[in-house]
């Protein structure tokens, strides 16, 4: 039931792009993306609902393929502040409002 995130880790130089994928075995109602820095709370980035996609930030966007039960997070022209662990949280169709989170993707952006 836990969504699978890939890659597990990625290292970028400032200004480079990255894609983080999230795949579920269940039909999904929504996908929620968070970024967490070490020792801090997860910070909400965006939510993608069944039937659409929502862009939360200027250089961070995401897509949601309902048929494939997959979502991808796109980070363009990465900044040092993008470093952290990215989690996708999935809400299955017909389920309660709880989120099931993946294991995370650790992103490191170097100067």
């Amino acid at each position: 039931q836990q969504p699978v995130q890939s890659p597990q880790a990625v290292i970028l130089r400032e200004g480079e792009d990255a894609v983080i994928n999230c795949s579920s075995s269940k039909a999904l109602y929504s996908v929620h993306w968070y970024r967490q820095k070490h020792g801090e709370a997860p910070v909400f980035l965006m939510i993608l609902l069944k039937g659409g996609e929502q862009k939360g930030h200027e250089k961070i966007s995401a897509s949601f393929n309902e048929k494939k039960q997959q979502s991808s997070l796109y980070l363009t022209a990465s900044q040092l502040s993008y470093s952290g662990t990215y989690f996708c949280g999935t809400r299955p169709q017909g389920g309660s409002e709880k989120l099931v989170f993946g294991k995370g993707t650790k992103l490191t952006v170097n100067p």
Partner: protein
Amino acid sequence: GAGVSQTPSNKVTEKGKYVELRCDPISGHTALYWYRQSLGQGPEFLIYFQGTGAADDSGLPNDRFFAVRPEGSVSTLKIQRTERGDSAVYLCASSGGTSGSFDTQYFGPGTRLTVL
């Protein structure tokens, strides 16, 4: 406005003791969630309240864990007879505000529980 707050930020206890962790959600949020996060893992769902009632407690690992939200605002997670395996960061989130996406869950800073 203020975000989700949790107290204490750190709690160290001995095996077998009882602990209470408190969560103060964003004002006006009707839904409140408890998650547990172990090192290197994503948050793991424990229980979800809609108002005062537990709408989904399927994530509570056993009957040593219990949570209440008597007035539909502040919630307390209670752990009896703590075990070393209970050591983790306990995160609280709330949703259901009047602005933004209704479904968005906003997390608090967490309580780091260490059971010796």
